[in-house]
């Protein structure tokens, strides 16, 4: 075997070693959370890479707890409403921004970009006031309202990018047939926008599902919380011994749907992220 061949083999081995390393690095913490969640609390101190037995007690404990189930329900309601509102407002706005030339368009786009760069804390006290005035404190509806601040700019931005790519002829034909802009959107563009809407919707869903600061600040009682807050506060339950088993079980329950969605829509997410960021 020549030195050249050896070098080639070494390169291949190195390459695959790197891939394995990356895979392990990316997946291991989640895997370890799953393993921990399957352990009874008496075995938590034993560090092992493969579960010696399957124990579902942590899941039973979490999934029979009314406040946790309620938190999941709240999160689902909030995230779905946020997606719905962001898409509804986003699709019409993106038509205006992506297909119509009008004065002030760049300003509007600049404002949207500016809003997406807001630190959430910067609006915390002002938004707190708005929410209290609208009587939405400690109410998931207040979260739906406040999440608009980070989902809407992003949705509009990505949808505008997609909107621009649709062929001009389609719209011209619609105008020739006397379609109003509203008809053009709903009858001509909407059917073509489904992939883009699925992508942005999913990204908005993930963002709303994961949000923590507003959810922590604008809710007060167990029954109004969302899942991230519920999980963060699980650890606050006892100050001496953290219930790591149930915390990990809850973490897995909350994360599995997202991981499944991400793996299914992987390609879409990549194109959505890059459309929002690179082309933006």
């Amino acid at each position, binding site marked *: 075997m020549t030195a050249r061949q050896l070098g080639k083999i070494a390169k291949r081995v190195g*390459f695959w070693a*790197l*891939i394995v390393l*990356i895979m392990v*690095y*990316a997946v291991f*913490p*989640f895997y*370890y959370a799953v393993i921990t969640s399957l352990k009874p609390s008496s075995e938590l101190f034993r560090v092992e890479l493969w579960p010696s037995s399957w124990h579902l007690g942590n899941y039973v404990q979490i999934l029979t707890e009314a406040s946790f189930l309620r938190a999941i329900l709240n999160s689902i309601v909030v995230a779905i409403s946020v997606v719905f509102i962001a898409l509804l*407002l986003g699709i*019409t*706005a993106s038509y*205006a921004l*992506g*297909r*119509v030339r*009008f004065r002030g368009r760049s300003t509007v786009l600049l*404002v949207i*970009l500016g809003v997406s*760069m*807001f*630190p959430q*804390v*910067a*609006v*915390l*006290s*002002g938004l*707190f*006031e*708005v929410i*209290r005035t609208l009587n939405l404190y400690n109410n998931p509806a207040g979260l739906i309202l406040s999440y608009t*601040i980070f989902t*809407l*700019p992003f949705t509009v931005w990505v949808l505008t*990018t997609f909107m621009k790519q649709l062929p001009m002829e389609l719209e011209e034909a619609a105008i020739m047939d006397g379609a*109003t*802009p*509203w008809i053009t959107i709903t009858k001509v563009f909407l059917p073509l926008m489904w992939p883009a809407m699925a992508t942005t919707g999913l990204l908005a869903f993930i963002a709303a*599902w994961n949000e*923590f*600061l507003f959810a922590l*600040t604008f809710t007060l009682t167990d029954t109004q919380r969302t899942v*991230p807050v519920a*999980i*963060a506060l699980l*650890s606050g339950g006892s100050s001496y011994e953290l219930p*790591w088993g149930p915390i*990990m079980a809850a973490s897995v329950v*909350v*994360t599995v749907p*997202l*991981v499944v969605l*991400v793996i299914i829509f992987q390609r879409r*997410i*990549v194109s959505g*992220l890059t459309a929002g*960021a*690179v082309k*933006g």
Partner: protein
Amino acid sequence: MTTSHSSAPEGARSAALTARRSRGTKVRRQRVKAAWLFLTPMLIALALVAGWPLFRTFFLSFTDASLSDLGTANFIGFENYLVHDNGRWFGILADSVWWQSVWNTVYFSVVSVSLEVVFGVIVALILNAEFKGRTIVRAAVLIPWAIPTIVSAQMWAWMLNDQFGIINHMLMGIGVIDDPIAWTASATYSMWAVIMVDVWKTIPFVALLVLAALQMLPKDCYEAAEVDGIHPVRVFFKVTLPLITPALMVAVIFRLLDALRVFDVIYVLTSNSTSTMSMSVYARQQLVEFQDVGYGSAASTLLFLIIALATIAYIYAGRKQLQLGGDA
């Protein structure tokens, strides 16, 4: 003869043109009107959740408002920011904890974004290579990004646990350390723990943006480089890196803005410890836990200004023209 002959159809044509043009402007005007109509709900929503609250935060920072009683705030000028009283300075700008949080945030942002960019590029280069199972690897790499920050913070808190954590276990196993480290509690290590978690979570984002840029690169210059026998490392620094710089700049600014407003990782991993406290954590603590809306708003306003300045400086320094879509 020729004139009258040609003038008749020409007149007809110009009449038709005017008619079409006027119909054109009518359609145009209708579209512009519709555009504003369509934008209105979005603009109202943004005004309600962004514009007005930001204005109120700004306003409240000049008052002594407290959380329990927002209605009866008194205007106190710059007292929340800086005031000289009885020979001593008070206010945020005189608060060492605030400056500590500014330093923490800057340190956290610079270190974690640098690490994310380096590792993100490496991961992207690997994902860009042709190999079997690339899709699976790509999906696996995305997983940390999909996991809620809160969950990843808890997962890592468990792995970094001083007594039962697997990280200490492994490090002791290979003899790097003799005694377990209290990663999240010790002042020396907690910032590194936070950075570790953030880097783990956001490498996928940077990697994806870079990957997208890599896939748009022209193939021919690589073929030329290969023919000329230029070393791949040299090719990377001379060809690839300059070409993906715009995408990297976008990734850096997105990540930097995110890092400067960091809240949840730090809050969950190390709660209100001053050795890792970020500006957002500081502001929220004043606002919610100490109920001091005026003071907290002042901190929030400062954070907002810092981020706005960072953005502007970055855009100018990088001379990166953010395409505002002038080509529609």
